[in-house]
């Protein structure tokens, strides 16, 4: 089993997966607790539109993904206010736009569709040195920002009005958080897959919330769950010749179901 780790591509795959496992729950915690779980989907589908745009018009697809994901999350925030009581529609509208644009731009891609497909389900075992550097850099930025803004994010997520009264720069922190979400989703889309990243944002946090009582512990357990899903997912995909990103997500879903059954029996 350990033989697989002797391959360079597998070492890179493990490193990337483990790094994303650390940052995804940092973003996922706020998204889940603010009941904005769909934001990951909307951002990743928009990132996919950016990838298609990049592939169609000769721009680096990851750069395209970052730009489109940033525009998407900022649009969600703007539309939430515009829709008022139906604010949840904002994510659906942005996701629809992302899917529509992906379909449109994909028609302009001259090469085969293989490249775009690799962004749908990720290509974690084909991570290049450039992508590894980018992922490491991103992970450091997102993790450092999440830790620096830990108490601000907690306060805003728990009670935005009280945070505002206490002097927390709510708008600025929300803006930075949205940017971090866009960066995480777009870079992770390349490695974990646009259709998979929102699962990695949500599943570890949902698992941790089945038994954790404190915010800090929920975050720590979420990171541990994400690390567990990715390492077991990658190992099993190598051993059983499965798609890595699919294996990671399915292990997450199975873990959640087991935890829910245990919880139900406790009650």
């Amino acid at each position: 089993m350990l033989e697989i780790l002797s391959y360079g591509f597998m070492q890179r795959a493990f490193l990337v997966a483990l790094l994303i496992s650390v940052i995804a729950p940092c973003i996922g915690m706020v998204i889940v607790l603010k009941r904005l779980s769909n934001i990951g989907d909307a951002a990743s589908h928009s990132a996919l539109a950016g990838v298609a745009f990049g592939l169609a018009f000769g721009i680096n697809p990851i750069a395209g993904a970052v730009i489109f994901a940033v525009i998407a999350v900022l649009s969600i925030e703007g539309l939430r206010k515009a829709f008022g009581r139906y604010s949840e529609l904002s994510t659906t509208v942005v996701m629809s736009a992302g899917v529509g644009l992906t379909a449109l731009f994909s028609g302009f891609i001259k090469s085969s569709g293989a490249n775009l497909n690799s962004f749908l389900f990720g290509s974690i075992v084909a991570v290049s040195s450039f992508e590894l550097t980018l992922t490491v850099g991103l992970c450091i930025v997102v993790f450092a920002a999440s830790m620096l803004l830990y108490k601000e994010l907690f306060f805003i997520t728990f009670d935005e009005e009280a945070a505002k009264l206490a002097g927390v720069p709510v708008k600025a922190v929300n803006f930075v958080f949205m940017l971090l979400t866009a960066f995480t989703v777009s870079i992770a889309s390349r490695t974990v897959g646009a259709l998979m990243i929102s699962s990695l944002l949500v599943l570890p946090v949902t698992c941790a919330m089945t038994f954790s009582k404190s915010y800090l512990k929920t975050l720590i357990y979420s990171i541990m769950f994400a690390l567990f899903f990715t390492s077991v997912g990658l190992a099993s995909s190598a051993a059983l010749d499965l798609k890595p990103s699919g294996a990671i997500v399915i292990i997450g879903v199975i873990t959640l179901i087991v935890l829910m059954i245990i919880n139900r029996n406790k009650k």
Partner: protein
Amino acid sequence: MNNILEVRNLDFEYYDGVVLRNVSFSLEKGDFLGIIGANGTGKSTLLKLILGLLPCRSEQITLFGTDRTEFNELSKIGYVSQKSNSFNSDFPATVQEVVSANLYSQIGFLCRAEKKHRVMCEKAIAAVGLEDCKNKQIGKLSGGQQQRAFIARTLVNNPELIILDEPTVGVDAPSVEVITKIIADLNSKGITVIMTNHDTHSLISLANKLLVLSEDGCASFYDKKKLSEYKLTRICEGLEGHNHA
């Protein structure tokens, strides 16, 4: 500084109509203001205007001698909202985490809490008698315990003015008694209190100043010690106010 709050000719309207019309009153250190009025008479709106959550014109509200629009000593004011407005009971957060979050203005942006902040947090939790619950998930506590935790959250900054919006709504009778006693004790220590409550009798017994809001947006301000028993009873029964004066 004895003048804590001064409200002068305050008007406020939403797009669908006037809520407050020409409201004026002032509070000094140690006052307890009970705000009385039926639903929709602007009680919560008035509190939000004082807190700066809704905009007002300059010179309409003065806090601790400073115009509301320029006031930034946020730790001087504590606010307990109607918990149902802002609280997700499944949120994984302990009482300690919720209380210490409000130390933000003392800790500062991007800074870490120090030992003295943890001591302040413990003290605030002890002041409401929740020492045994400090590591429990706030959403799993009873309604009364949750509201005590929110009072502890305001106390952590040693505020000089506490604003409570229906603090006992949805709370069981024994807890109402505990919460009422905590609020009365805080007021007896010199903390100025502004409170709205659906239980007018209880509010009138606690307060020394009363503000009665009527449906046309007007307000009548009373000093309780200058009121006759007859007038107090009429206020209590909802028969006294601007419309009935």
